[in-house]
């Protein structure tokens, strides 16, 4: 028995080692960091323990700006992307011709590099000296005036960020929802048809309840993903997100850790833990709500 035991642990050893060093230890350490006051990364010394880091972060205007940006981004993109994905998936599941082609096309953003394609979006939206950019020309066509979406007013920038975020997260949502829709038994629809049920009623009484687990799964992962938004913003506005006023919470963490404003792992840790607390709370609320409404 002992021999078998040790053999099993041998198989697990590499995984345990890597997870221990790069996940479990950092997890403990990040909490310690967040309470070490006046940590100096050059000399690796600190004054003592306390909650100063948290209070610093919570009073930092950059952090508050990042929280505000992230909350707006979450509030806009999660409902919108889930709604549009639902619409598209329902459309997809009711056609036969071209379905595979559409599915393939819709999935493309998933396999592209967020940073690279973000540059394309930047060009489409950017207003420069020699051209207003394609989106602005479209705006002009409909009688609007040009706006600089990349360096201009806050809401213009927020619009581009939300737009790009939705574009990026859509493939995953469409994929999950189409496979959920495909797994609803045809019997239910047939029974409803015999009863002469209207399309809308079929949708709200059969389709929605049947796919509600997937829908809530998407909402939960959507919230988590949107709270961690970062590279989309970098792709559009560049590395210096604070200057652009478009930083996100994760961006704040990395800026504190590294870069021109970096070198403060304690502040970064405190901010990361605050983010984790927010995400955990939201996820718990989501789970509680889903328990009430999801039909399993």
């Amino acid at each position: 028995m002992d021999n078998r035991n040790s053999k099993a642990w041998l198989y697990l050893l590499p995984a345990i080692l890597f997870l221990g060093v790069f996940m479990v230890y950092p997890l403990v350490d990040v909490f310690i960091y967040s309470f070490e006051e006046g940590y100096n990364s050059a000399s690796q010394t600190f004054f003592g323990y306390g909650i100063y880091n948290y209070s610093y972060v919570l009073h930092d205007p950059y952090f508050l700006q990042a929280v505000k940006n992230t909350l707006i981004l979450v509030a806009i993109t999660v409902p919108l992307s889930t709604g549009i994905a639902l619409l598209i998936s329902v459309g997809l599941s009711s056609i036969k011709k071209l379905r595979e082609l559409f599915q393939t096309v819709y999935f493309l953003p998933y396999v592209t590099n967020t940073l690279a394609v973000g540059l394309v979006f930047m060009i489409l939206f950017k207003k420069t000296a020699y051209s207003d950019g394609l989106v602005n020309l479209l705006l002009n066509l409909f009688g609007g005036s040009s706006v600089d979406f990349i360096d201009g007013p806050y809401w213009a920038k927020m619009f581009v960020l939300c737009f790009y975020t939705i574009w990026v997260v859509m493939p995953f949502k469409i994929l999950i929802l189409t496979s959920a829709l495909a797994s609803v038994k045809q019997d239910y629809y047939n029974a409803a048809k015999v009863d002469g049920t209207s399309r809308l009623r079929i949708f709200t009484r059969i389709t929605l309840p049947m796919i509600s687990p997937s829908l809530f799964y998407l909402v939960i992962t959507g919230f988590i993903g949107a709270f961690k938004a970062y590279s989309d913003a970098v792709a559009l506005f560049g590395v210096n997100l604070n200057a652009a006023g478009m930083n996100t919470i994760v961006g704040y963490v990395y800026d504190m850790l590294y870069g021109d404003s970096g070198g403060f792992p304690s502040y970064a840790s405190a901010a990361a833990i605050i983010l984790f607390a927010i995400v955990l709370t939201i996820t718990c609320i989501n789970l509680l709500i889903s328990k009430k409404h999801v039909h399993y």
Partner: protein
Amino acid sequence: MTNQKDFEKIERAAARRKTVINAVIYILLGFWALMVLFPFYWMVLTSVKSYASYNSEYIPKFFTLSPTMQNYVDAFTAVPLGQYFLNTLVFTVATTAIMLIVIIPAAFAFARLQFRGKNVLFTLFLSLMMIPNELVVITNFVTITNLDLRNSFTGLILPSITSVFYIYLLKENFAQIPDELYYAAKVDGTSDFKYMLKVMIPICRPTIITVTILKVIECWNSYVWPRLITDNEAYYLVSNGIQEIRENGFGRENIPAMMAAVVVISVPLIVLFLIFRKKIMEGVARGGTKG
């Protein structure tokens, strides 16, 4: 007779309504397909416009009559795009290969072997799935810096190797293999290790391929960790490279050359996707994260 006519009328009306609904659906789907494809079209189009013609177009043209490859030449000569590419390739292959070597035995142990503390350990593994990367990246950054591994492949690769989720995915798949096979192999005197290599891995090849592809996509697109750990261009991955190009390369304004670089970076994954379309979509449906 009138009944018959009414019936036909109703049927025709229903058919008409169906056509209208179908048309609306196709327009909606077509619109989103356009939204998805347009940025790709624009990126390819811009990449073949010459610098001069791009900058002279106040109203950008939707096509070009004189495509040029000059931008692609620039992308590889003016900035070390080839270097970034090679780095990413090394990083992706090494990370994925080492990951498979680490997670397959672990999944095998959880699925097949009996040992004390198995359930406790597996629960602990599963609970690690909930830990967001943002929490651990801070200490990892300090660890790698202290080990003097910044700007090295080792530093890039080490923290990206394990994935609890893939262990879980593989373990579930391994566990589906009937026990009889294992006992038969045991009777024949096959060792556990040989059983894993010769029986389990071939049977579970589809899942292993799925995990591999997902990891490759993840590696190819990774940005945050490489950015933290490298500030030497010789170790930049494509994501960091593209950011660097955006901030400093090509004199900032050479958009066509930038787009050429973007096309070059995007093509490998798109080709991979078109080849393994079914596998990738299936795998992402089971274990995707982005979004």
